[in-house]
């Protein structure tokens, strides 16, 4: 089955900087990769989906890339704000089953 790896260490950045989070996958190359945001005590919220034939996807201050050669997806938040502080999860899978990474916690400070 697919294995998803995300940096378990928290990422601390200053307000206004670009945050970059990494998601690595093993085994097969997925057709889609999804990113979610999770705030403490709440369920994950879907942010973006990128297909394997898309190198990049944008939504407002968010950008996701998908490199099938490196087996990696990068998630960028530009002009980060304290309100962006949360845990970000990546997920992929097949046949109705999503596999999630453990998530990376982002802390944006003033």
């Amino acid at each position, binding site marked *: 089955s697919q294995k998803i790896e995300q940096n378990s260490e928290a990422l601390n950045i200053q307000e206004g900087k670009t945050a970059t989070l990494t998601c690595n996958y093993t085994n097969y190359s997925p057709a889609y990769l999804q990113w979610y945001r999770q705030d403490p005590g709440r369920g994950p919220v879907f942010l973006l989906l990128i297909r394997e034939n898309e190198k990049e996807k944008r939504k407002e201050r968010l950008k996701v890339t998908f490199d099938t050669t490196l087996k990696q997806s990068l998630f960028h938040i530009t002009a980060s704000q304290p309100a962006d502080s949360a845990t970000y*999860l990546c997920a992929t899978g097949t046949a*109705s089953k999503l596999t999630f990474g453990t998530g990376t916690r982002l802390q944006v400070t003033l």
Partner: protein
Amino acid sequence: DAGITQSPRHKVTETGTPVTLRCHQTENHRYMYWYRQDPGHGLRLIHYSYGVKDTDKGEVSDGYSVSRSKTEDFLLTLESATSSQTSVYFCAISESGRTSYEQYFGPGTRLTVT
């Protein structure tokens, strides 16, 4: 927000007792999922349903059973709770089982087995 509710939101129970968690949706989505989330493991799929009375196992299904008698309700049952089942449980729904469709999550149920 997607119309998903979970009940109860918090529960403390003793080892060996049966526990049922309920997920209710108002979106009429075909697919429903139960996950557990534990530190260091992330979200892991327990069971999912692709229609009324149609269910299948996920990654960590041992010790759990599910039922779906109506489109809007998906029940997760721990027949005899163990301390290893202490966790936060999330229900999710999706229009389709394809991984190109996003999942919408409920608020979670925190279960403690003493």
